[in-house]
């Protein structure tokens, strides 16, 4: 049986023979108990043939493909519903309602997946391990929150959980003869059935590495360019997560002619704007954040920037200044330029001024550049990561 490496090697040879690559790296997420998903990396390929395509001929916008069904009901009845983003609704079991319980689960899941992906990237794709993880000490921070539950005593009575417990006890006692007609006045309530929330110490995070992801989201970044940047950043994040054994913090910054910080990866990935491009704003924002929050002392800081190489500042004077400033504290700056296929190669402003400034050679251990086409396959993107972190 052929191995993944041999397949990728074969795919590389296709290019030499004048054919397009055909192997893509697919990911299967194994559903696990709780938030523990596992990512399995598999190769996939498509055998192209002439086949019919579906057209939404007489469908209204927003209408999906019809299929078969069975059951009672009349035409027009809604028989089921599926949330577009399942993570958000999947929670809601115990202690439903607002509070920090909700979103975190989803994020953790993404992190668990990313860790697995990072492991695969490190092992199967021979991404190098970090030689020096820096001398920064581990930071552990704690928050206090009303998350733990306790029977009998506590700070706040959890009414829903209590009621459930009371009903449970009364069912066991045979005190609810008819479930369709419950009379709460006859409930027998034991003090042990009162469920309270108590204040408890939660480890908020423990972290060694801080990664800034910077992305150009100006008008020119539409479509594949953004996808390529983002998938490279996902993989970078995964790899760092594995390298630092999950002790990684991330910050996300978008820029057009101004930079802004966003709170999570989803926003980082999906925001679009139609403005122009000033690359330096993003770097400046990172510098300001690091200075203001005094981060350089405690963290190994990584900065990755993804762009299509367009910059209003043609000779990059301001950008280079900010980068110089950054070089004083970072562990690594990685810049990915994803070229539009309509632009010739090695023609972008960012690439030109980075090269002519000599900064890449002068600080070759701290700053790396990867230039790739917008149609880059996964294997090329991974190749690029090697370049950025080598």
């Amino acid at each position, binding site marked *: *049986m*052929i191995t*993944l490496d041999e*397949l990728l090697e*074969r795919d590389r*040879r296709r290019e030499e*023979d*004048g*054919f*397009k690559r055909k*192997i893509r790296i*697919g990911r*299967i*997420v*194994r559903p696990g108990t709780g938030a523990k998903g*596992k990512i*399995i*990396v*598999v*190769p*996939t*390929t*498509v*055998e*192209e*043939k*002439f*086949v*019919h*395509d*579906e*057209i939404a*001929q*007489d*469908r*209204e916008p*927003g*209408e*999906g*493909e*019809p*299929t*078969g*069904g*069975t*059951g*009672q*009901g*009349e*035409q*027009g*009845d*809604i*028989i*089921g*519903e*599926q*949330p*577009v*983003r399942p993570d958000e609704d999947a929670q809601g079991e115990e202690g439903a309602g607002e509070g920090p319980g909700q979103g975190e689960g989803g994020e953790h899941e993404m992190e668990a997946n990313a860790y697995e992906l990072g492991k695969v990237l490190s092992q199967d794709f021979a991404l190098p391990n970090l030689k020096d993880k820096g001398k920064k000490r581990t930071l552990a921070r704690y928050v206090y929150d009303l998350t733990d539950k306790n029977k009998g005593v506590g700070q706040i009575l959890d009414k829903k959980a209590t009621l459930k417990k009371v009903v449970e006890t009364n069912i066991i006692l045979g005190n609810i003869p008819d479930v369709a007609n419950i009379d709460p006045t006859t409930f027998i309530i034991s003090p042990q059935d009162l469920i309270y929330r108590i204040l408890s110490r939660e480890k908020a995070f423990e972290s060694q590495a801080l990664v800034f992801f910077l992305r150009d989201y100006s008008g020119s970044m539409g479509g594949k360019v953004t996808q390529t940047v983002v998938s490279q950043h996902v993989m970078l994040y995964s790899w760092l997560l594995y390298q630092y054994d999950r002790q990684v913090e991330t910050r996300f910054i978008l820029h057009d002619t101004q930079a802004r910080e966003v709170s999570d990866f989803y926003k980082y990935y999906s925001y679009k704007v139609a403005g122009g491009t000033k690359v330096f704003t993003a770097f400046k924002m990172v510098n300001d954040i690091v200075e203001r929050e005094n981060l350089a002392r405690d963290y190994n800081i990584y900065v990755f920037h993804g762009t299509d190489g367009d910059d209003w500042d043609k000779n990059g004077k301001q950008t280079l200044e900010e980068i110089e400033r950054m070089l004083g504290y970072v562990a690594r700056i990685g810049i990915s330029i994803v070229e539009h296929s309509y632009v010739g190669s090695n023609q972008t402003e960012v690439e030109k001024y980075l090269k002519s400034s000599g900064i890449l050679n002068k600080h070759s251990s701290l700053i790396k550049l990867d230039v790739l086409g917008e149609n880059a396959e996964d294997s090329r993107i991974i190749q690029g990561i090697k370049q950025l972190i080598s």
Partner: protein
Amino acid sequence: MGSPERQKIMELVSQHVKGIMEECKLRARDHGLVFDDETLEYVVTNRDMIELSPKVMIPTLYDYWVHDVRVLSGKGMYEAYPSNPYETVINTRPAISFYNDNNPDWLNVMIFYHVLGHIDFFQNNLFYKNTWDIDLTGQALSDKRVIAQLRSEKGRWVDYAIEFARGVDNLVGYHKELNHTIQKDTRQAMTKTDFYFDIFLQVIKHVSHNTYLKEITRYNKANDGNEDFFEQILSRYPEFEELYRKQLMSQIPPALDVMEYITRHSSFLKEAENEWMKTVLQIVKNTSLYFQPQIRTKIMNEGWASYWHEYLFMRDDRICGHEIDYARVNAGVTSMPKVGLNPYALGMRLFEHIEHMEDRGCYSFEYRFLKDEVRKKGFDLNKGTGKEYILKVRENFNDFTFINTFIDQEFVSQHDLFVAGKRFNNERMSWQYYIKSKKAEDYKDMIIDTLYHPPQISVDPSGTRNGVLYLNHKFEGKPLKIDFIENTMIGIEFLWGGPVHLETSEVVRPGQPADSFANFWDPSSPAAVKKAPEPVKWKRMVYVMENRKIHKREL
């Protein structure tokens, strides 16, 4: 056992289990199933199944890297979603089937009945006729050796040849070849009489209606009175004999399918150093043809097997004590999903429905003319011919004709079937499923839309000149999948050795839809009346592939 690999992974079932199978065969035959005596049952692990499935379960199929990719991703899938298939049968002589070795006896009885249903289907359905006289495993093994030999000489170019051949292996003229075989048994040269009435009088002489009828009367009289009908004709039309002879000569050979055309006429393949690719093309084509009937009878084949495992097992004393276990397993296989399609379940219910309808004599004018629901429901001629009828259906139908003929409102209503629509709800950020239609016609159309139907693409001889291969896609209401066109054409260009043109239809993207204005004549009518979606407009396009570069232009 042929290749060593095959021995490595396969082991026959135990004598005890084989005994169960033989017992099942006897009972299945008693109820009307027809199949060869010999069958082979092998025990395999789930992992073996994963490795076999990209090779359509033929252990001896030629090696190809895409199969390896599928195996790797199959293994990943299995790790994430372990599954435990009950059985797989392949259409070989003798029929081979694969099983897990950890099934209890009662389950094996059920599974064997299911498998015998498949085997009966393979060996009786006429769409499989061209597979009946082939030893597939033997042929595949010899093909595999040829490919291995070629690979040792030509290296990865063999894989390119396989890839490009597989790119057109859905354009292989399955129906044409089937038609050829079936007609071989029944075809007769056109008789003189047929020629005279059907062609000579109507097409060549354009005689009046009256004359035509007179001739028929004369023909009938001549037959009664034993006089020579043609004597008078020959004297009146001396050219008749000659025209008839010409007609017999001019049996037009059927047009070549794309793959055949390339094999025969490609300048590239004619070159001595490329001739070996023809062998590859032939192997890929034969393999594809072999599996065509299977793709086209999925619902019937699965339905048939499920029908029989239910029918036979329920009448088998070996079910005793396992009724509940069986009910559970059976429900897992043959229950109708609330949303989605299950070919096993649909096919089984449709066979049951057909049997029931025929038992009552519903496939008759008498029934069809009834308008009254109550009388329809009570209609029963007590024909009791349902079983014979479905045996005929399994012989003569494929999925399309099966669905198209037998899905009626009675069936759809009885099983509470409906077309499930899916639409996006913006406020709730969710997909909502709803009952779109409970009409049999809509349900039928929805199923037919899921059936395998490769595009009809043929070589246009008038456009094929100066080294250009001109392909014409017959428009059937659907466009080609655009993403796949380029790579497919690169492959064809490679095999053809020159530019390739493809004529096809594409949707004209409508411009910005005009805002709906308030109705000037009747201002009370709501402004935002939902307009019916505009009918899609089509245009003919030509894709041109030359030197591995593609461009397209409007016709």
